């Protein structure tokens, strides 16, 4: 039978502590009635109240949602196509194009897109951010879709074809419904990746438009304030909800398998 190794358990527990303690501190101090994130003074909602009166923050949040919505939608369509194509044929170029953006350091995509946008005289703003976000989301959606396809029974499609269904009908009535959980999981993953992205947005945003992570960055650069804790807590809550839904839809995608 299996060995229970005490040393192993203790070290694992310490790593979990290391992973969670910082985030717990952020959440706890968001309810703390003190400007300093130093010691507990008393409970308050005021940082959340302040947040909802901070016009810049609200605009940034709105921008983040619009960008994430549009980018996730477009990336889902393109990523699904890429996933299907990757499964059907081993196109080396496509595989490289889909996987390389995931493997490269983010800063490279950020600066190279900045150069591209400026070269074609594009004004940096919401559109340039969306184009950039779609670029890095495609790969993640493609992988989610591909994972789903490979777990599918190819016999179903063959059976339908044998029974005389056209390829299009086959796709619409068998492949697509079966793929749906993978596609939705990919879409939600793209949405959270977009909402969370800082590095690539930083380079492609220009001066006029801000997103939540950019807003947090500029606040944190100046000073550490509990308002940042409050917005962080809300952002964590949002991501948590989206990811819970996504992992229900397609458990395998989120296990790094």
């Amino acid at each position, binding site marked *: 039978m299996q*060995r229970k*190794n005490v040393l*192993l358990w203790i*070290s694992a527990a310490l*790593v*979990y502590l*290391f*992973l969670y303690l*910082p*985030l717990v*501190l*952020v959440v706890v*101090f968001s309810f703390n009635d003190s400007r300093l*994130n*130093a*010691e507990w003074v008393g409970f308050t909602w005021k940082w959340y109240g302040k947040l909802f009166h901070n016009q810049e923050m609200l605009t940034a949040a709105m921008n983040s949602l619009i960008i994430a919505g549009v980018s996730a939608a477009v990336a889902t*369509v*393109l990523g699904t*196509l*890429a996933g299907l*194509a*990757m499964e*059907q*044929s081993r*196109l080396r170029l*496509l595989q490289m*194009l889909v996987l390389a*953006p995931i493997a*490269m*350091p*983010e*800063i*490279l995509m950020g600066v*190279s*897109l900045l*150069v*591209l946008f400026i*070269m074609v005289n594009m004004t940096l703003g919401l559109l340039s951010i969306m184009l950039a976000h779609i*670029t890095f989301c*495609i790969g993640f959606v*493609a992988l989610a879709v591909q994972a789903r396809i490979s777990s599918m029974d190819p016999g179903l499609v063959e059976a339908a074809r044998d029974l005389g269904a056209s*390829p299009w009908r086959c796709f619409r009535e068998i492949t697509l419904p079966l793929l749906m959980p993978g596609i939705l999981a990919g879409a939600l993953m793209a949405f*959270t990746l977009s909402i969370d992205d800082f*590095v690539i947005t930083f380079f492609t945003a220009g001066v006029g438009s801000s997103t*939540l*992570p950019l807003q947090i*960055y500029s606040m*944190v*650069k100046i000073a550490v304030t509990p308002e*940042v*804790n409050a917005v*962080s807590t809300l*952002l*964590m809550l949002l*991501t948590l909800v989206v*990811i819970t839904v996504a992992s229900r839809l397609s458990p395998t995608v*989120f*296990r*790094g*398998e």
Partner: protein
Amino acid sequence: MQGKSWSKYLLSLPPMAYLLIFFAAPTLIMLFASFRYPGEYGGLAPWYVHENGRLTFDLTLENWQRLLCTDIYLRLFVKSIGYAVAATLICMVMGYPLALMIARSSRKSRDLLLLLVILPFWSNFLVRIYAWMIIFSPVGALTRMLNGVLALFGAGPITLMYSPTAMLVCLVYVHLPFMVLPLYANLEKHDLDLLDAAQDLGAGKWRRFWLITWPLSLSGVTAGSILVFIPVLGMFAIPDLLGGTDGIMIGNVIKQQFMESRDWPFGSVLSMVLTVTAVAVVLLGSRLGQRR
């Protein structure tokens, strides 16, 4: 079956076109930009001049020479690689026991334990950095406690914030899940009968680990190391917010060239070096992975 090969190219066309325009082209444009002159007000200068019906090209090797002339940038690269190696090693030391523990626990609890590793990873990147800014802050409990202890021994107060140590802790914190996931995926597949057989033959706990588990897990170790090493190497936000004047990495200088000093050609040179390094590491890693 004839329509099939045609349709698969049709399927791949839109994503391929998109990625060619927004990923492949920008990378090539950057390579080209590294041979151009900087513009007068930042950006890039025109790369050709049309004068009296004659076309002359305005390209240069100066940007690359600048990289090689002084050792400032090469040193910075070495230093960044050093930080990336350190972060990778620490992630491995911390992540391995965790991955092993999850892989050896009951099937039912594995999903939950793994989810607990992934969850912090899905909280915003900046929030995770910010969390460490709170912990390392000079008014924070940790700094005051440390200084209290140091004062007992008559040592002067120290600051944790804005130091390479703070930066390294945060680099490890942010990238730890990248190490744990591939390690777990590997360790979970091990045949436990091998360990039992070794035990029956009298091998101790450590011997079993070093002779069986560790060698079998090397492909997971390689995968995890690449996944940690590459993003850390290109990092700029963590050194920016936590590193102070000593904790500067190559990402900071790239950011500086594009956003502050606006010397795009030189920024492109540094980006190309980073690209080549990352590609080399990936190729080396997959070569190592294949051999096993």
